[in-house]
């Protein structure tokens, strides 16, 4: 994308006109939650003003319209993932709930004591804690694969960790800290060779790269709406429909049943079996609008833009004394740049940047095992998206340089 292209896209995001602390907002926290374009805001608003009713119930016009729009959103998600059957798409609150759904509906019923789940040290807590809960309940072991010397997950160690007792292999598509895109096909093949389920946490990939669940070899793929410019409170789990069909429900209630007696019930077909209660209808419609927007811009173009900004930011930060960055460099590196100013806690750096209108995240990024592997307690993190400009990266790097001077009295040896 040219600077002109980005300038035009920015007009779609009303929030980018805001000023924060008397400065133009520089929003570098899209990996935590992306801003929504007006197309999404308008789709949600239009639905609520004109079409809202409950879905899959009632014979009236509004309910029929709402149902059509909601099921249209499901088909839109399937198309986004290059999946041919919308029945494989279950709406959830977010990627976290999607992974928990797999842990419950698949894990609790298929895993036995002594079985193993293979993850990597670089997973988000959303792709660790659901497995820990399952492990405690079922007597299952969770094995973590370490980083290699190049700040990427060691895929030789990953292949070696997958063995006879492995029942689930779960890893990320794009790391929320390292920023890299993982090649997953070989991992999928290794998992399938031992009959294991291959689960992909796509929360950071969905906003940035084209996804083809079949080409990846995924059995399950999870992502969140608010990271792709959609609303919060909506996410999706895609699972191979022929597998999903064999699983029992996760939550019980309305919508997910076939027939209910007072002492027992039978359950609906997929995907309704996994959507108990009234779903997030407006949010699902907003998510579909976000996916329309992403595909109109083009995910290849977004990925190129993210990578160019990451290269530029890493190169500029490398020119500063006393600033450390983390993660690999190369064509697999997307627009996520974790960094520390030596001797200064990242929260203090983030407060300094915020005073200049620059929003970054600071903390462990819900990836405590990875923080330990990197030898840090926490980092600051700048993350870029389709609306981020090179001028914003410049403003950010210049402010990081000034923060170092501001906090210099702290960095004197204790």
């Amino acid at each position, binding site marked *: 994308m040219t600077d002109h292209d980005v300038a035009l896209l920015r007009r779609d995001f009303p929030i980018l006109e805001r000023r924060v*602390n008397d400065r133009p907002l520089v929003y570098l926290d899209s990996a935590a939650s992306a801003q929504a374009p007006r197309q999404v805001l308008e789709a949600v608003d239009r639905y609520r003003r004109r079409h809202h009713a409950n879905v899959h119930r009632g014979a009236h016009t509004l309910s029929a319209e709402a149902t059509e729009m909601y099921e249209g959103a499901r088909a839109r998600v399937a198309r986004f993932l290059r999946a041919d059957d919308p029945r494989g798409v279950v709406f959830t609150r977010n990627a976290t709930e999607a992974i928990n759904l797999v842990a419950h509906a698949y894990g609790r019923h298929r895993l036995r004591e002594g079985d193993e789940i293979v993850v990597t040290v670089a997973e988000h807590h959303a792709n660790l804690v659901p497995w820990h809960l399952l492990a405690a309940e079922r007597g299952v072991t969770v094995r973590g694969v370490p980083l290699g010397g190049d700040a990427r997950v060691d895929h030789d160690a990953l292949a070696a960790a997958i063995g006879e007792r492995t029942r689930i292999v779960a890893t990320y598509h794009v790391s929320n800290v390292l920023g890299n895109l993982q090649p997953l096909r070989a991992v999928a093949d290794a998992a399938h060779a031992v009959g294991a389920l291959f689960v992909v946490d796509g929360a950071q990939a969905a906003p940035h790269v084209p996804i083809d669940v079949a080409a990846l070899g995924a059995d399950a793929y999870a992502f969140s709406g608010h990271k792709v410019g959609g609303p919060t409170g909506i996410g999706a789990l895609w699972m191979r429909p022929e597998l999903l069909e064999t699983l029992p429900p996760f939550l019980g209630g309305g919508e997910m049943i076939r027939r209910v007696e007072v002492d027992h019930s039978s359950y609906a077909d997929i995907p309704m079996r996994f959507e108990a209660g009234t779903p997030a209808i407006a949010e699902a419609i907003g998510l579909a609008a976000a996916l329309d927007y992403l595909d109109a811009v083009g995910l290849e173009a977004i990925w190129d833009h993210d990578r160019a900004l990451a290269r530029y930011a890493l190169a500029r930060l490398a020119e500063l004394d006393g600033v450390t960055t983390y993660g690999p460099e190369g064509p697999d590196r997307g627009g996520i740049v974790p960094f520390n100013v030596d001797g*200064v*806690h*990242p*929260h*203090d750096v*983030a*407060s*300094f940047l*915020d*005073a*200049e209108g620059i929003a970054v995240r*600071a*903390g*462990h990024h*819900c990836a405590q095992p990875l*923080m330990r592997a990197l030898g840090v*307690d*926490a980092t600051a993190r700048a993350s870029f998206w389709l609306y981020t400009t090179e001028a914003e990266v410049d403003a950010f790097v210049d402010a990081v340089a000034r923060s170092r001077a*501001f*906090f210099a*009295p*702290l960095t*004197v040896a*204790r």
Partner: protein
Amino acid sequence: MTALAQMYQAAILEHARRTRHRGVLDPADARQEGVNPSCGDELLLTLRLADGAVTAVRYEGKGCAISQASASLMAEAIEGRSRAEVEALIRHVKAMIHGEGLHPDLGELAVLEGVRRLPARVKCAALAWTTLEAALRTHPAGGPSGAEPAGAGSDGPENGGG
């Protein structure tokens, strides 16, 4: 950047580097861990209590300048004070960082006032004080003095999430 400058003024920076009350008392009458899970600030606070007063204070921890400065200022302020005075100070500090006014007894602690204009950082300044509150709860005034170290860890104060 006035809110920021006020918050990080020299006194805070100085206190974050200070080592006078760093360490662990062993034995201690109260031993309490505090943590902000969302940002990873950690604190281990140990106290000696005698004759209704806090006679010695040591803390160890890691975290941002604000959480560490707050712990250092707190240790300085409460050592040698009676429990009643310490409990009053906890109330005054909480009121201050939540923007509910500056009590004259706060003294040097008033440098923490600026944090009320950095809402994201209030929990950093509060950590030392919520940990102190929990430590005193494990060793109620009027209860047996000295003897057994109070439980730490799982019943420690936790702010935020993530």
